[in-house]
């Protein structure tokens, strides 16, 4: 079972790819998804997180087969 990970905008460019996939584990948090997907030790404070297209926090628990997205502050409108 796995998590689909998406990166957007400047974050996508910095990481050099638009998406990744990580294996799901019980009690997994969004921060842990970030670490596994990027190889970094912690989720930067200015990175926003969404789980299944809804905003969530780094501590939020992630269900199996979820879509988790990481992106910089939004600048639409």
């Amino acid at each position, binding site marked *: 079972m796995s998590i689909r990970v*998406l990166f*957007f*905008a*400047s974050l996508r460019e910095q990481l050099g790819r638009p998406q990744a996939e990580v294996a799901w584990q019980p009690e997994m948090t969004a921060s842990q998804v970030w670490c596994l997907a990027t190889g970094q030790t912690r989720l930067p404070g200015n990175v926003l997180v*969404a789980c299944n*297209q*809804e*905003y969530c926090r780094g501590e939020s628990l992630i269900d199996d087969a979820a*879509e988790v*997205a990481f*992106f*910089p*502050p*939004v*600048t*639409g*409108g």
Partner: protein
Amino acid sequence: MLDIQVCEQGFDPWHELATFQQHPDFAAGKSGANAVFVGTMRDFNEGDTVQAMTLEHYPAMTTRQLQTLVQETVTRFRLDHVLLRHRVGAIRPGDPIVLVAVWSAHRAAGFDACRQIMETLKHNAPFWKRETLSDGSLRWVERNTAG
């Protein structure tokens, strides 16, 4: 009546508004107030000349966020109708980026609701702007202007 669309191509706000009001469910005598905001691309930002811009988004989330924020505003301000358009893709100075139009019985609710939709959209909807400066270099817009 709610009409929300993310546009891959350019749109003309006045044409969108005229078309929306021709819908049979649009009862012209019901709403006394129509507040509209159009955001267009400026040719300057942070002191630099900007010659073009690309708008990226997270399509599945954009749709959900826009639906949610419009629905909450409709309920809170008892709006009759909302029309919302947001561009993505490659745009030029002067091109419309966003159109928010709300119809209500009275003007106070209309002004407040239009502004709330714009502020919530700016803070929550997953769009990102990348500017092309006059020397051809690319720059991500890091934050929105305070509202």
